[in-house]
């Protein structure tokens, strides 16, 4: 099947992130001697990464902190531009497009750090994300013509349907509550609802289970499956909770220092010596 998203040799480094390599240091009696010309190399945050996601597939990205997972999301959504490599959506390069253009092509995401519009209500958060769907007719909206009112009603109904996806949790009186009054878990749910409202085909979830208790984690695991089975999204997930990763993934990709160190089924990746080393340190795979 033709992939919905394809990354080819994607690389990104940041000027500020420099790692010293090959540094010789000799400490003698009472004096410190150091190499005059240590090799300073620029460490890539994402380095020559290939990845493809097929329609309807759930791919998880795992890796220790600083592995470049969120940077990967920022590259795909157009917040950063890659130094090298290409990002293809339905076979067409999206490198250089603005974040809103990429969103309107069908890529939506949630945020690890939660970036809801806290100045708006629950329902308004979802409605705001429907902006890109149709042409903005400013004068109609200023003068509140019947057409503009009808469209507002349609968007409100759409938002209600998206929120209904989460059972009773974001329903009824919660619609008109400000987003900041929601619990942490509900904020994560609302971010997913908001992402759904942009009408995406690829949904990217950045740590959807972070900060959730075991019951909520179980629920979100089932929900991600439903998002694929019932709505038909292709899903790219960053997650640290291995139960979630095991429960949802068709395929798992492990990153370390921006390099793909393993790819395959959950079992394959979880037992890969490189992955165990990346998480637990050099030699950890042998000790087992």
């Amino acid at each position, binding site marked *: 099947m033709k992939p919905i998203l394809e990354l080819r040799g994607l690389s990104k480094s940041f000027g500020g992130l420099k790692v010293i390599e090959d540094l010789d240091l000799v400490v003698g009696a009472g004096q410190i001697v150091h190499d005059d010309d240590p090799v300073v190399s620029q460490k890539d945050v994402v380095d020559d990464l290939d990845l493809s996601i097929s329609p309807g597939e759930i791919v998880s990205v795992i890796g220790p902190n600083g592995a470049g997972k969120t940077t990967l999301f920022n590259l795909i*959504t157009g917040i950063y531009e890659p130094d090298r490599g290409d990002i293809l959506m339905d076979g067409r390069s999206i490198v250089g497009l603005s974040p*809103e253009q990429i969103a309107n092509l069908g890529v*939506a995401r949630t945020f690890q750090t939660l*970036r809801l519009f806290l100045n708006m209500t629950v329902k308004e958060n979802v*409605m*705001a994300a429907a902006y890109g769907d149709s042409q903005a007719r400013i004068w109609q*909206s200023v003068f509140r013509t019947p057409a503009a009112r009808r*469209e507002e009603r349609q968007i409100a109904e759409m938002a209600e349907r998206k929120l209904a996806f989460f059972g009773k949790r974001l329903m009824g009186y919660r619609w008109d509550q400000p987003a900041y009054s929601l619990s942490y878990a509900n904020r994560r749910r609302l971010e997913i609802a*908001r992402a759904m409202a942009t009408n995406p085909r690829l949904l990217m979830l950045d740590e959807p289970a972070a900060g959730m208790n075991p019951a909520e984690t179980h629920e979100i695991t089932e929900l991600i499956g439903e998002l694929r089975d019932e709505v038909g999204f292709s899903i790219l997930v960053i997650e640290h909770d291995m139960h979630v990763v095991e429960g949802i993934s068709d395929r798992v990709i492990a990153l370390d220092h921006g390099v793909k160190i393993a790819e395959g089924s959950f079992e394959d990746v979880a037992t890969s010596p490189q992955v165990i080393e990346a998480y637990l340190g050099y030699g950890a795979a042998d000790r087992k």
Partner: protein
Amino acid sequence: MEFFLQQTVNGLTLGSVYALIALGYSMVYGILKLLNFAHGEVYMFGAFAGYGVLTILGGSSALVVPVWLAIMLMFGAAMIVSAAIGVALERFAYRPLRNSTRIAPLISAIGASFFLQAAALLMFTANSRSYNTPSLIAIETGIPLGPIRVWMVRVLVIVTAFVLMILLTLWVNRSRTGKAVRAVSFDREAAAMMGIDVDKVIVVTFLIGSALAGIGGVMVGLVFGRIFHLMGFVAGLKAFTAAVVGGIGSIPGAMLGGLLIGFAEAYTTGYISSTFQNLIVFGLLIVVLLVRPSGLLGRPELVKV
């Protein structure tokens, strides 16, 4: 009592105009965190656009069209001219600097303000003009309010301003574009990733804020008569004060701040002396900033975690 009522009506008139100008200040700040110091000049050009239309239609004493039509056309022309200037400012003075340091667009705003003042001086000379409104709408017309009579022009200004403020509030809260404006003002990057066209939203904000300022310009021309190329400076400063007092970035805050500044000015002029007018207004600014740094209705900066 009669005097008090008169000053109250004065304050309400002035306050409505300040509120309209302050709204543009506050909306632009809310979305770009930029103090658009050229906003006063946008208002000044609105006043001149209204004057231009009035002159074309034969002047206030020899109108060739009905008065209501003339006033509508004046408001319309002011909205178009001011909106065009506001959008041009955004495009040429601010957008190229959007990703530079925060001080750069601020300096650019001050430069744009002087540029527009000088342009107005070249186009309209330094002479002040008068709308000569009393020959347009007789000073005897009006609505009785207890012992006093409120001149029709003041009624028109106050009612128009409040209708516009209600429309704006509805638009921001209900419409799709209004929601996009609020989303962009809270988190521009996240809004972009939700498919909101940030550039368009910023343009719309400038367009609406500037059109309101243009209407404010015509209102001042109608009520106080005299317009001149430097009128935007003090009015802009007062509207800015109104926006800060109300809580910059907050739309109801700008309305409240504008009205407060208007009342403060009117009562000071009435009961103390017009000499103290600016002292009281800017003193009010200092007091509010000391007691509530985020303004009366402003929300404190959220700490991001």
